């Protein structure tokens, strides 16, 4: 009797372990295989040859330029915004909170259409801008605007919650010690939330880099002007498959780098007492 019970227990344990191992393997493979296969589809020679392709390099530089501008704008405007937003109560705060989250659940293509309807040549604001000879849609500026619209929530949400969670005693002590509000913000608030802010910024950069739907709707797909890397992949699939593949691999490498950066920053952080 006892022997059977012990045997049953062992059998159950083995079954649990096998099930766990199978699940972990299945999930890992499902996520990893498509990415790995990208690398198997090309050769180093082919990769470096198409890297020199002007279409590929111009998409790469346009992507890096636009995402850098987008990120800088989000950080410069978003950090003080998130600070004031989290430290004050004002009518409609709930609505603003919802609007910040909206781009996360809204289909990017819809975001692009919305931007077009507002800023396009005949758009609500666009028609007036057009009078002054300013046309936003289908320009590099439009690429940046689309990226900011879609990717800023990652940074704003993070900054908001960091500022909300920071113990006000640190900032208050700094003030009583003679530090102006600005000095307090730069010397106390920012260093204490820095690692979290960087993690948020990296996520925003990653999302902006991968932006496709809103960009193609609002900025179009003009090589050298609005054709960022994801758009170049799309075009590559219709003709120059190798170029598309090379850009895809580049995007995978950059995304991987971003995730590693976030992990490292998150581990470095955690000053909060």
């Amino acid at each position, binding site marked *: 009797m006892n022997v059977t019970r012990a045997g049953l227990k062992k059998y159950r344990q083995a079954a649990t372990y096998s099930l766990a191992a199978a699940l972990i393997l299945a999930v890992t493979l499902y996520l990893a295989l498509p990415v790995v296969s990208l690398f198997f589809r090309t050769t180093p020679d082919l990769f470096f040859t198409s890297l020199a392709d002007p279409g590929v390099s111009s998409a790469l530089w346009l992507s890096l330029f636009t995402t850098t501008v987008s990120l800088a704008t989000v950080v410069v405007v978003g950090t003080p915004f998130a600070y004031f937003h989290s430290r004050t109560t004002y009518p409609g705060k709930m609505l603003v909170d919802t609007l910040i989250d909206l781009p996360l659940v809204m289909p990017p293509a819809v975001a692009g259409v919305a931007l077009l309807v507002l800023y396009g040549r005949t758009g609500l604001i666009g028609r007036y801008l057009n009078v002054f000879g300013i046309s936003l849609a289908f320009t590099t500026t439009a690429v940046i605007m689309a990226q900011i619209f879609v990717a800023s929530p990652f940074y704003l949400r993070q900054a908001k919650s960091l500022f909300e969670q920071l113990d006000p005693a*640190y900032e208050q002590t700094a003030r009583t010690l*003679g530090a102006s509000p600005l000095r307090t913000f730069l010397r*106390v608030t920012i260093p204490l939330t820095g690692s979290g802010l960087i993690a948020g910024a990296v996520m925003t950069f990653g999302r902006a880099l991968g932006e496709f739907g809103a960009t193609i709707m609002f900025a179009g797909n003009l090589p050298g002007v609005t054709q960022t890397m994801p758009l170049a992949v799309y075009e590559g699939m219709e003709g120059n498959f190798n170029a598309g593949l090379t850009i895809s691999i580049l995007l995978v490498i950059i995304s991987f780098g971003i995730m590693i950066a976030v992990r490292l920053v998150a581990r470095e952080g955690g*000053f909060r007492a």
Partner: protein
Amino acid sequence: MLEVTVTRKLRDFTLEIHLTAHPGKVLVLMGDNGAGKSTTLNIVAGLHAPDSGSIVMDGEKIFDSKEGIDVPPEDRNIGYVFQNSAAFPHLTVRDNIAFGLRSQRVPTSLAAGRVDLWMEKLEIKDLARVKAGGLSGGQKQRVALARAFAPEPALLMLDEPFTALDANSIRDVKMLIRTYVAERHIPCIIVTHSNADSRDIGDTACVLCRGKKEWEGSPSEVPGCMCPRRSG
């Protein structure tokens, strides 16, 4: 000398308080949790605005609702140690203590000497290069005290300064506070729950109850609980 006459509407009651703190003397604020002790300190520090009243420090109005005077906290020259010490975790012990001196643009050579002096007095000199985030509660408390002492404020306010310290340290720190207040001839307000602490360090004790001063007198004569309990 500090004279405080302020009112402020709080969630459950109205804080209505009149306090006088004399130079070279320690005023102890006592009372139940939520009686308004910390709020009073925050108001004096300029971190919360009272609804009405005035705060006069050494003859100078730092707050007056009628005249529209409200000196910002950074210009009040008050040394304030919070209950949880709030030692800046991202700065070294040395930089923590130098923070006030740097903010007030004290010349570097002078500041360095004062930082050393206070690290020595609070026995944290060997921790000078350690980031405060990694210190124990008692060490953080010493850093916070040194940081408040170093800029030589015109008023010292300490919220529960002894809770994180062990018995031996408490004795030393009490002595240090007494000497500092007497030598610099400044008023000092200390918030505490403990009758023993109050007797050891206080010249006058004030018992607050739901935002009002319920009793004031010698720390050795503080009556037992006198605040009418709210019936559940």
